[in-house]
């Protein structure tokens, strides 16, 4: 279908793609995996016409093509599903899909014909979606479906999905995969980028591994294993087992006492995400009840313990974290950090108490994209005495510090002075994690800490979180990745509609046990809630 021949792309100081040759067959799901910064996104952007290759050529169905822009790519039947959705929340699904490609009759948009077409597409590939629903009321997974439909509506035969599962809950991944299989069965070709190797093995027909801009190899998904892929990616065996020492919980370092966060207006992300349950069209997301996003939630995290919050995205996790840091006001209740009441205190004061924050949305809360990498590595600690000399930022000292973090976290970069937006997605995430954990915080609030990280980097970050715990620090972990929550946590709380509806010690928590609570079906909030003791047993967990 499409063959990439010797494509090379250079950025200042980086060889992002190094003579990449790759063939994608008609009707297959072709996964591309590789370390952070291996050049996956760059290659996809070349296919979609966002970058021009410095060398090499691309052939589509045997004909050489020059893709000089996204418009050309679309005309050639190449579509890209963006990770950061580009939807207009106040428009309906249908309006978003046809935007820019309206079919008009006598100068008036022909809604009926468009709707017919969208319904056909949705039906054909099994997308459960209401074309008349307003996008603002959709869950993340549903918005992604709209993005895919948008691409299909424009007539794409080749779909590029760059890390589509990073933002999805497990159930949503299952539904996405069902859609993708139908698409492939219907003759569409799909390029899929992902870091979760289990998912890759599950969905892909063939897998290509990139390392440092080069193709290491392409093989059928059936012929390889997760471990084999990881080793090809990194060039060394990767541990999938995390050694977890016994937990010795100490005094509570973070306690939330009946905390309520209204969440009105919310954040851009939180806004209108509804309280979606996977994609099941339960009443929860349809009727937007005037209920506080965080609704009288209480929990305690002790020193030497990792407390994991499991739950479907949109059940108040965002607001909970923002409430702790006073990025959204806590309307009632108390937030205590290290025994001090910090409810609605200035953010700087809360953070000065020694509490780190790894936000779920790195572009919104974590980074100032146009600022340089070294500047982003001290965001929040830029006024610390070690970084300021005679009223000026001490560039040498900061660069020294930044270089240390870069080595420790293996941040792949060419130039500290480059804006952080020049980094690959995973390396941007490393900047945040490195910065936040570098301050040896007493409490760590980690939201999706490994989102977008490759297996090696994710393993490293998980290890670091465990080290923090072993050193007596308190870690609150919020992750859409249930496996991650279960393998790292000492206690797991399930969050549903702004409350912790159940709490389990890690040894008892299984996906089967948690699932129903996450969907709100098992325990109406009034029923008795199993609360776990903060007592941990050691153990080994699979990630």
């Amino acid at each position, binding site marked *: 279908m499409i063959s990439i021949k010797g494509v090379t792309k250079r950025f200042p100081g980086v060889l992002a793609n190094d003579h990449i040759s790759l063939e994608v067959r008609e009707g297959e799901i072709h996964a591309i995996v590789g370390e952070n910064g291996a050049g996956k996104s760059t290659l996809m952007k070349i296919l979609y016409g966002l970058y021009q290759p410095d060398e090499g050529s691309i052939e589509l169905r045997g004909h050489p093509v020059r893709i000089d822009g996204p418009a050309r790519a679309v005309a050639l039947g190449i579509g890209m599903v*963006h990770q*950061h959705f580009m939807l207009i929340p106040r428009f309906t699904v249908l309006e978003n899909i046809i935007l820019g490609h309206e079919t008009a009759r006598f100068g008036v948009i022909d809604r009926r014909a468009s709707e017919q077409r969208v319904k056909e597409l949705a039906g054909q590939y099994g997308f459960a979606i209401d074309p008349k629903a307003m996008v603002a009321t959709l869950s993340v997974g549903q918005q992604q479906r709209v993005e895919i439909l948008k691409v299909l509506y424009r007539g794409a035969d080749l779909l590029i999905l760059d890390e589509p599962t990073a933002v999805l809950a497990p159930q949503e991944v299952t539904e996405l995969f069902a859609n993708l299989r139908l698409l492939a069965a219907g003759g569409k070709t799909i390029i899929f980028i992902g870091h979760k190797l289990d998912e890759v093995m599950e969905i892909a027909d063939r897998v290509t591994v990139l390392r440092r801009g080069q193709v290491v190899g392409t093989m059928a998904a059936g012929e390889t294993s997760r471990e084999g892929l990881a080793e090809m990616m990194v060039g060394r065996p990767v541990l999938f087992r995390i050694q977890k020492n016994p937990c010795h919980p100490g005094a509570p370092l973070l306690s939330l006492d009946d905390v309520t966060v209204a969440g009105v207006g919310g954040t851009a992300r939180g806004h209108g995400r509804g309280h979606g349950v996977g994609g099941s069209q339960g009443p929860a997301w349809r009727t937007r009840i005037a209920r506080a996003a965080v609704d009288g939630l209480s929990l305690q995290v002790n020193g030497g313990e990792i407390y994991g919050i499991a739950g479907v995205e949109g059940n108040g996790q965002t607001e909970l974290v923002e409430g702790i840091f006073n990025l959204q006001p806590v309307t009632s209740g108390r937030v205590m950090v290290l025994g001090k009441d910090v409810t609605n205190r200035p*953010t700087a004061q809360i953070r000065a108490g020694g509490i780190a924050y790894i936000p779920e949305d790195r572009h919104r*809360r974590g980074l100032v994209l*146009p600022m340089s990498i070294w500047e982003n590595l001290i*965001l929040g600690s830029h006024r610390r005495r070690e970084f300021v000399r005679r*009223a000026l930022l001490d560039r040498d000292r900061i660069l020294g510090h930044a270089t240390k973090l870069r080595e420790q976290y293996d941040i792949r970069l060419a*130039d500290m002075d480059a*804006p952080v*937006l020049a980094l690959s997605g995973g390396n941007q995430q490393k900047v945040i994690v490195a910065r936040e954990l570098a301050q040896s915080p007493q409490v760590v609030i980690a939201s999706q800490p490994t989102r977008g990280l490759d297996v090696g980097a994710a393993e490293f970050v998980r290890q670091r979180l465990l080290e923090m715990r072993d050193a007596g620090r308190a870690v609150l972990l919020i992750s859409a990745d249930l496996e991650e929550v279960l393998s790292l946590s000492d206690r797991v709380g399930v969050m549903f509609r702004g409350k912790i509806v159940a709490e389990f010690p890690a040894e008892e928590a299984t996906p089967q046990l948690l699932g129903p609570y996450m969907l709100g079906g098992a325990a109406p909030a009034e029923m008795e809630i199993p609360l776990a003791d903060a007592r941990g047993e050691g153990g080994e967990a699979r990630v």
Partner: protein
Amino acid sequence: MFRKRRLGLQVTAPLMAVGFSVLVGSVIMLAIGANPLQAYAVLFGFSLGRIDSIASILFKATPLIFSGLAMVVSFRMGLFNIGVEGQYMVGAFAAALAGFGLKGLPAIIHIPIVMAAGMAGAMLWAALPIYLKIKRGVHEVISTIMMNYIAYSFLHWLLADVFLDRTQVLGQGGFGSPRVRTPELAASARMPTLHKLFAAVGIQLPHYIYVSYLLFIGIALAVVVHYIIWKTPFGYELRAVAQNGPAAAAAGINSERVMVKAFLLSAAIAGLAGLSDLMTFFGYYDIDFPRSYGFNGIAVALLGRNSAAGVIVGALLFGMLARGAEGVQVMTGVPAEVITILQSVMILSIVVAYEIITRYVRTQRKKEVGA
């Protein structure tokens, strides 16, 4: 690497704008039957050909350095302080009060007091807009435009009714109407001109040239502004808040406080823009005190791509055009208005070119953001 690329982009827009406006100017001159080549020859030859002319350019550039720097600070903060216009006028008036009201001070003390009064007056005038912005969400463009009009009227009233200099010697044997102006500044409040300095290197400036030490103060201030924005923790916060407020908030930066500080800093710098005229040329504040330094400051800041060094270049260019306009009118018969048109076209095209470049950079950036 990235620094070089940024510099390249910074230079492109102004050059494009200058080139384009020279082109438009030529068309206009051809249309009115003048010879553009001759006019441009005079424009550059006259303004750059003689040392006193250059000194005059420096004098004309001085206020624009301050108003341009004031704009740079506000733009970098992501605020549009159109109120520089009103702020520098109120500032100049406050400085005049300190200049004639205080007596018997040595110059070394009096001059700084006058300058401080200029900054304080301008900050006072900026206080309400930034208060409204933070507390009520009133857009600063609206409120500062309003404050500009209030400033014109308010100063008019103060001049005509409250501080009118009644000691001045009236014309027509004492029966002419008095000039609407304040009393004159004490001699100790006058900023020394650069005559002595030039004389020291053997250049005798004519007495009608008023370029003063404020020029050096302006250049030094440009260095300070550059350092503030790029090297201090405050400048770091200012850029972080302007470029991603939510991330700055998450890092514990109090964006409201940063905004207030930056806006007042912008105003304080604006407060110095009128002092060149007040402390050297006029020696009093009168009803015809020069206007539109604030608006020209916007153009200078845009021309200078929002950098402190660029502001100096932009201010000098504007000073040169103003000086050249005088020559062109006298020597070629092309009306000085054509030069004003040239200036305006330059401002417009700078805005357009700036927009084009920004869009270009933005699309580049979008592409660059890795997933």
